[in-house]
């Protein structure tokens, strides 16, 4: 048992730090944090291209497909260095979701067609899993794909699709058969968002912003060549991806950064002559959280180490998802407490110097949108069901 970094790890850390410090400049930082898609979309692509050119866009991918081939330690170091600077994660739909499905289950043609443009961020992906009315019961999906010659004709609707309005492609679970269990008869399709018959309806979310959408499919024609793997086996491919997604969702490094921001503001915030960071009740709240986070960091490392030694991420990833999102929400809540009256200020209101506060709108946005974390990616209730069954055998 040893958590010390080897000398080559330390050298790697320095290399990563150096890259981030120069590549993540104040210009890109400002554009990335804009609320305007016309500003942040090109900024995201530009930032991801910098990572791509450095060869670091896909730490989780195998080397042969353009991944880094890092071990768990290096991946951990990279994440820590990224998050500690407040650098946002890459948009996950291509790089963390559909990419691994394509290189694991896709045909050679699909790999050749799609993987390079995912890596280079030249194509923006979104995810079509959830459906109106289905909620956490993913497998009950009703969007139907009927085979006609070399094409499927797709009809139905997907919901909660993040950034569908910006995407070039969508990966979808669709029903190709209604026989057998509901998990059977599902296929995994890659669909061009420019296809006729696709309509994107915006959903304004609780943070008063538009990032979610409903995507309607009306007689959308999709080449059979865009199906991943076999017909009616899509659930299997999706499940492999879900465990992967849940591991990524723990967000330990980002929560650590969030705690750091809370600490900074709480050190500046004064109430009746006492700094907030010195208030015992605040300290308790903060250390309750920090201690859970210290634990979760090692829980994640333990899971990663076991994955690295060959185990597939199993039901343990459900734990990372539950604890990770709960802690994340608590960090966001604490930022709201620090912001006090200003927690209610909406993003896009007066500038901080006029307002008297810069934490408020940021805290509001993170907190509000963060409510979704315990709901999406398989709600935390569903994750608890998974653990009860798969780990506890109940």
């Amino acid at each position, binding site marked *: 048992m040893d958590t010390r970094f080897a000398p080559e790890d330390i050298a790697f850390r320095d290399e990563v730090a150096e890259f981030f410090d120069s590549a993540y400049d104040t210009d890109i930082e400002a554009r990335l944090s804009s609320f305007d898609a016309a500003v942040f979309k090109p900024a995201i692509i530009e930032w991801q291209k910098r990572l791509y050119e450095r060869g670091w866009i896909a730490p989780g991918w195998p080397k042969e497909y353009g991944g880094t081939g890092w071990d768990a330690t290096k991946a951990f170091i990279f994440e820590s260095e990224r998050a500690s600077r407040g650098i946002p994660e890459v948009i996950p739909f291509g790089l963390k979701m559909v990419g691994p499905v394509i290189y694991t289950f896709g045909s050679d043609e699909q790999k050749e067609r799609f993987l390079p443009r995912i890596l280079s961020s030249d194509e923006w992906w979104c995810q079509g899993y*959830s459906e109106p009315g*289905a*909620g*956490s*019961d993913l497998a*009950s999906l009703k969007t139907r794909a009927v085979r006609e010659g070399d094409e499927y004709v797709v009809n139905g609707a997907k*919901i*909660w699709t993040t950034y569908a309005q910006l995407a070039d492609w969508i990966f979808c679970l669709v029903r190709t058969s209604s026989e057998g269990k509901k998990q059977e008869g599902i296929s995994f399709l890659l669909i061009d968002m420019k296809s006729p018959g696709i309509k994107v309806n915006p*959903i*304004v*979310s*609780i943070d*008063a912003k538009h990032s*979610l959408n409903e995507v309607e499919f009306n007689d959308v024609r999709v080449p059979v060549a865009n199906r991943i793997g076999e017909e009616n086996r899509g659930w299997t491919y999706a499940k492999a991806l879900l465990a992967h997604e849940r591991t990524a969702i723990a967000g330990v490094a980002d929560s650590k950064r969030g705690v750091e921001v809370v600490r900074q503001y709480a050190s500046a*915030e*004064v*109430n*009746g*002559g006492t700094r*907030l960071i010195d*208030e*015992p*009740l*605040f300290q308790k*709240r903060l250390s309750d959280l920090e201690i859970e986070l210290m634990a979760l960091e090692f829980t994640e490392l333990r899971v990663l180490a076991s994955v690295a030694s060959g185990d597939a991420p199993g039901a343990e990833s459900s734990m990372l998802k539950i604890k990770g999102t709960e802690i994340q929400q608590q960090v966001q*809540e604490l930022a*709201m*407490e620090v912001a*006090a*009256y*200003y*927690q*209610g*200020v*909406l993003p896009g*209101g*007066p500038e901080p110097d*006029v*307002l*008297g*506060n810069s934490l408020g709108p940021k805290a*509001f946005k993170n907190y*509000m*949108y963060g*409510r*979704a974390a*315990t*709901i*999406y990616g398989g*709600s*935390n*209730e569903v994750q*608890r069901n998974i653990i009860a069954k798969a780990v506890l055998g109940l």
Partner: protein
Amino acid sequence: MNFDFTEEQVMLRDSVARYVQDDYDWDTRVAIANSETGMDLTKWQTFAELGWLSIPFAEEHGGFGGGAVDVMLVMEELGKGLVLEPYLATVLLYGGLLHKGGNSELQAAYIPAIIDGSCLGAFAYLERQSRFELADVKTTASASDGGYMLNGEKVVVFNGASADQLIVSARTSGEQSDEHGITLFLLPADADGIERVSYRMMDGQVVANIVLKDVKVDAGHVVGELDNGFALMTAVVMDANIALSAEAIGIMAQLNSKTVEYTRTREQFGVALGKFQALQHRMVDTFMSYEQAKSLLYRAVCALTDDAEDEVQAIHALRVMIDKAGKHIFGEAIQLHGGMGITDELDIGHYAKRLMMINTTFGNGDYHQAKFNAVRYN
């Protein structure tokens, strides 16, 4: 010992409840929240006609002479409808200061205009640095020409954008955080030297930052005693803490019943959500949180009415519980509504946001718990 309401109180409650149900439905509320001022003056006029604006005031000024129970009943029902009009700011804060601290000329001159709905008021107490400490006042009032000259800045002033009249806390002596040396001044919101920057908060209300530059106030417009404004504002804020808690209770009732109703009809895995035992037990817990918070509301109202010696403790305890129960209840409401819970379209998120604003107004849970501990254990 009884928890019954008088016939008059029941009528008042039912009148507000009926109005909210019939004339303040969700679409109406959304339209008001999206309007420039975040309120509807014709609604306000109706409140006046229904007598709600007169409740806490003495009969000699045309008031209803109501007490904490009456205010509680009104606020609870207003909370259920997420009513945006500035009852707290105008009637309870601005009006409360005049009622509790104004001299008879000021009362006679300004209270009737509150009651008839012609004057909106605001209480400007918060400053950039003051967080939850009412005594942390840097705005100055210096004697000048037999009156005073005010300089400084107030922030997040509820109803600050629409108010016709302001009461402003300013320092006439003492150091930044001294309780002594604070004086309250009544002045028109369009007085020379006042600049307002307004912005909308998450709960739909429009607030303002107010900069005061050499604003003149004459000596007759001091509300309460010179240098002793702190006690007056504390008393009014303590009353407001109960009123805000009542509003929160109304909101929690809505969140709980809407969530139970949603899970009763919404199916997943072929079964209504409400049939899942794990969710049932969680909804039982939110039900109990609501009942416990309501009990402390009653306790605080009774303590206030009875002038009980543990009144201050009861109010701090109430605010601690409102914070705790509120977070518990809106957290579960959003979670159990799933994806729908995080849309702007559904009312759930808006109820949550109003609870969050209440929980930060006049101190959050930690603040009130620290005060409770100080009173009780030191």
